């Protein structure tokens, strides 16, 4: 297993290098940041000095080389827009997104698994069909529209919850979080729900399918014959077996939630990294875009690894091998 993990980490270094080249070239191909960042009434003199200040007067290959050699020393460059280290901008925004993604994931699991179980255990009943229809809505309603509707209903009409922003935050072990204050929590509910809905639908469907597949299997019949209670059969034997697909998909989805919560973060003015990414792309803030995607690629590599390890813990039949 150690060899397996080491090999995985080595491969990821290659992936990171390839990503940096592609993104660097991609942002370069879009346009010239100086055209976006200069003052609206800039003179020739100012435009030229901006290009020099941002290091854009050098050949592309030299710009990349400077980036790469600095990156190897842990310096990912300074943001063109904010003139702050790109990586610290990203890390400063990361807790907000992680918190949002985590709460969304918990909502998806805590609500989704029981609903999926009910649905799977009582197939083709009214309850099942209601839940299934609901999950279709979760899948197919655009995220953006869902968010606007949540705001319209709960903030504008009912006035129960704030329409956006992060609210009061507290510092715990150097990390800023909204989980510890009432105001922070109220700000979190709507965006987390918005982000959770798609995954909630996904979890319901995965759980239902899993239950439907496992219920007719021999070991369930055997458990019944042995005289185990229905409760024990469902909560221990069925649940454990349906967790493998759920863990895989949710693991991958968790990565996506963190990396691409752009829509939710924009609608709810949530100060996370998704909003930072979209703003940086608009302004061609190359150091931030490149560093962001490197962070995301790294994160996906780690999540994949954790998912693989979680497999082997959930299902003893699966062994992590160093496949050649």
């Amino acid at each position, binding site marked *: 297993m150690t060899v397996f993990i080491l090999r995985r980490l080595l491969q990821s270094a290659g992936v990171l290098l390839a990503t940096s080249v592609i993104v660097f070239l991609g942002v370069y191909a879009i346009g010239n940041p100086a055209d976006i960042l200069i003052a609206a*009434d800039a003179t020739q003199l100012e435009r030229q000095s901006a290009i020099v200040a941002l290091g854009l007067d050098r050949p592309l290959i030299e710009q990349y080389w400077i980036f790469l050699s600095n990156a190897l020393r842990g310096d990912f460059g300074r943001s063109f827009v904010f003139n702050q280290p790109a990586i610290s901008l990203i890390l400063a925004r990361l807790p907000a997104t992680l918190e949002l993604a985590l709460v969304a994931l918990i909502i998806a699991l805590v609500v989704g698994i029981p609903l999926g179980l009910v649905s799977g255990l009582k197939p083709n009943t009214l309850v099942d069909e209601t839940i299934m229809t609901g999950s279709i809505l979760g899948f197919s309603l655009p995220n953006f529209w869902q968010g606007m509707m949540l705001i319209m209903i709960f903030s504008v009409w009912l006035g129960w919850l704030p329409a956006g922003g992060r609210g009061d935050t507290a510092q715990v072990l150097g990390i800023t979080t909204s989980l510890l204050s009432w105001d922070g929590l109220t700000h979190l509910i709507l965006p987390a729900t918005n982000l959770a809905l798609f995954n909630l639908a996904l979890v319901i469907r995965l759980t239902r399918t899993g239950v439907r597949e496992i219920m007719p299997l021999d070991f369930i019949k055997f458990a019944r014959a042995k005289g185990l209670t229905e409760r024990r059969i469902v909560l221990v034997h069925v649940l454990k077996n349906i967790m493998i697909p759920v863990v895989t998909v949710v693991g991958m989805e968790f990565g996506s939630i963190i990396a691409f919560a752009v829509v939710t973060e924009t609608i709810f003015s949530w100060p996370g990294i998704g909003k930072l990414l979209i703003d940086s792309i608009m302004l061609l803030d190359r150091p931030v875009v490149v560093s962001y995607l490197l962070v995301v690629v790294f994160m996906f590599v780690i999540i994949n690894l954790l998912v693989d390890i979680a497999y082997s813990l959930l299902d003893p039949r699966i062994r992590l091998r160093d496949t050649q």
Partner: protein
Amino acid sequence: MPMLRKLLLGLALSSCLTTASMAVDLTVGSSTEPAAIDPHFSRSGNSQQIAAQVFNRLVEPDENLQIQPGLAVSWTNLDELTWEVKLREGVTFHDGSPFTAEDVVFSLERADEIPNSPAPFTANVAPIASMEIVDPLTIRFTTTKPTPQFMELTGMVYIVSKAAAEGASIEAFNSGEAAIGTGPYKFVSWTPGDHYKLTLNETYWGEAPEFENVTYRLMSNSAARVAALLAGDVDLIDSVPPGDVATLEASDGIQVHSAPSGRIIYLGLDSARDESPFIIGPDGAPLNPNPLKDVRVRQAMSKMIDRQLLIDRVLSGAGMPAGQLAPIGLGGHSTSLQPDQIDLEAAKALLAEAGFPDGFGITIHSSNDRFPGDGDIAQALGQLFQRGGLTVNGVVTQPYNVYATAAGKQEFSAFIFSFGTSTPSAAPGMTNVLMTFDEEAGTGSFNRMRYSNPDYDAAMRDALAEFDPAARNRKLEIAAEIVFGDYAILPLYWPEVTWASRDGIGYVANVSEDTLATYASVTE
């Protein structure tokens, strides 16, 4: 029990009343975010919004962009190259230290030395050859060449405290440690992507600020801003999308504040080259000679545009038809330049006269995320040109980050752009958009058409060398008449900018598009 309840109610009420009689707080839903708190780091509008409240300038623009005394109370030319500026007495910085000529000299020297600044104040301080402190409240400036618009340029640089800002890093400003100004509000904190906070400066030299604490919530999404205002989360929002103005006006408890902006939306025409990539003949190849070189063709195109219709249908009426760059009220606005009315007969005649009775093929380009309605305006223009007798081969809209670079490289033939004026006169726009593209002379930096007219350039040089403001404006008008008579660009409209607030909060809608707490007021 009822006694107790009454007592409690009374207490609660009285506590409400006492807080109400004290200063009020203001929460703003802002569409833009500063790049840094250091006022010299970026001259672009989003960073100026916070700087304009925490810091002062030698002269301050009013809501019509005309300059008023700020930290300078008076200025005179001793000769063409020398300016003597008298500073305001008794002004103190937020940390209590007095404001003196030392701070001005320090700020002006610092303004073009900010590392990695993408939009420095270089051009603002470029005229200065030397500065001499005559006494703590008098400075004598010598300029490198006669600079009539000296105060409009150099006077617009923010004045920081020498003691606080000397050697300070951008982080020291962002944390507030070095962000010490003389402005009506003091900087409190900034959480990037979320909000920044200001608090009133009790010892402000000018009109006392109305709000105790001001919070700017950063909401780049327009729908989110409108929802936050409707939900009562914020008191004031800016950049209300034109499509939402009617809804907000109809809502209870919401007020809408609109003003025409100093931003011109125009169609640039690639009129300098013999062949233009998207002006094509029936065979699909670029026409040579390029019809856009002919002023009659450009005039014909202007007469195909129903400007009022564009504004009514695409912008829900939020704009004013334009026939020149400067709106009424700005220096350089000529009353004789009226927007062209739609006249298809005349357009047809002009096209025939120019040798294109059957028109020609054209593709229109535009950004789609730069200002409200930019992509839709391009679509509508396409239809108007088709109706006017041209063959519109397509309307292409792109995100601004792609579009701006491509337009700068002359990749388009007919393209929509905007230029925002934030100075008392239209001189910067008339210099940067319309004068000959010339890196040496520093003119025409946004002349993406590469339009070049020696008569106009001469008229502009004459205007820019004029020291008397009234005479300069008259000369700018003459230059405007030359260049718009030649249809160098086709001005379309000046959009209205709109703010919305809850009842009880007033706002001075301003030409400069600034969202400042100093423009907001309590109206109850």
